[in-house]
């Protein structure tokens, strides 16, 4: 399933730390960073759940530690159908559509 993940995390000291953790998680799970706060990739339902649980816990823990800015953290997950993804329009610098949708079966570098 192709998903877009979009987030807004406060730019405080604690917020930066949370953001770094989220970015690392999204990248290891197989998502590609196409903009500063936008990730996209082809992952399965379990991986989406894993990611959602990770983010939820992170915010909960932050609130427990009196990091008040975590109240305005937001992370949205948008699933897209293959068909809609094919119709994406890119203006300016483009990202590699085949790469993020796992169409590339062999990469030679």
């Amino acid at each position, binding site marked *: 399933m192709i998903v877009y993940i979009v987030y807004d995390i406060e730019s405080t000291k604690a917020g930066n730390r949370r953001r770094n953790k989220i970015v690392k998680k999204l990248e290891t799970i197989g998502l590609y960073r196409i903009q500063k706060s936008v990730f996209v990739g082809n992952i399965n339902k379990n991986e989406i759940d894993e990611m959602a649980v990770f983010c939820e816990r992170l915010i909960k823990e932050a609130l427990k530690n009196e990091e008040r800015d975590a109240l305005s953290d937001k992370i949205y997950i948008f699933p897209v159908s293959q068909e809609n993804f094919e119709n994406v329009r890119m203006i300016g610098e483009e990202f590699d559509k085949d790469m993020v949708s796992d169409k590339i079966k062999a*990469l030679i570098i």
Partner: protein
Amino acid sequence: MLLFLVTFGSFLHVRDGLITVKIGEKGEEKRFSPKKIESIFITSGAAISTDVISLCYENNIDIVFLNKFGDPISRVWHSKLGSTTLIRKKQLEISTGETGTKYARYFINKKFENQLEWIEKLIKTRPNHKNILQNLQETIIKHKNSLNEVNGTIEEIRNTLLGIEGSVGREYFKTISQLLPESFQFEERSRNPAKDEFNAALNYHYGILYSLVEKACILAGIDPFIGIMHVDNYNKKSFVFDAIEMVRIYAEESTLYLFSNRKLGKKDFQKLQNGVLIEDNGKKTIIEHFTAFLDEPIRYRGRNIKRKHMPLFELRHLANEWLQNEREQFEKLEIEEV
């Protein structure tokens, strides 16, 4: 995704839980999630950190080293068996007894079936070559029938089987050669080094296939070193050479396609004194086409699976059979298919 490292001086390491490749000595860095990579193939001088090896181990990724002909020379993978040792014990029994004969026949039979199926397709698409293709069809059917008359322990009949296989092979490649554009036609099979462009490309395909089958053997719990049929043939007791017979057709189909559709040309090869090497561009063409081809779905025992998963399915099936000891059932199956 399969990752091929071909740039000299690349460095493979781990950063933030991602497999990171520094391309060339001063090149840029590319980062990959271990979840997205199936295998890493290293074909030229590269450095690799131990962190990558343990990350690959955790994610079931195998690191394969290829030589310049595309033959896999080494593999880094976890040191587990893949399954129970009982399969290997059974395999040892089979590799010497009468049952071995049955399996050896099964592999060759499968190979002939694949060839016949492909020739059938070729006759439709190449009416000009109908005659030679039909001749080949007859030869294969004749030898396929003679397979059933071979009886005895595997030791006794190994040479007979290899003989049958060899004589079909010669005819088969002679015919394929005639299907090629004139400048690429060849005399006979050659390897290490290949003497012509077609053989060089075909060997490279086989190399990729070989590592796929070896991985499938380990995953299915079969020992890749205990061969049933190929024992004397290659200095190495190798089951992989037995099992690869069932899928060699993929490499042959892909190679013929690349040459007859002019995807590979003279510029993709380099003539040496005693053979032919593939240029980097040619290797790229082969890898890209072949991996896409292996990713296409086929019908297999009533299911839709990708070509690349066929060896694993087939070997798991074999391993299960050895475990359950359902030999009668196998016989039944064999008669149906012969």
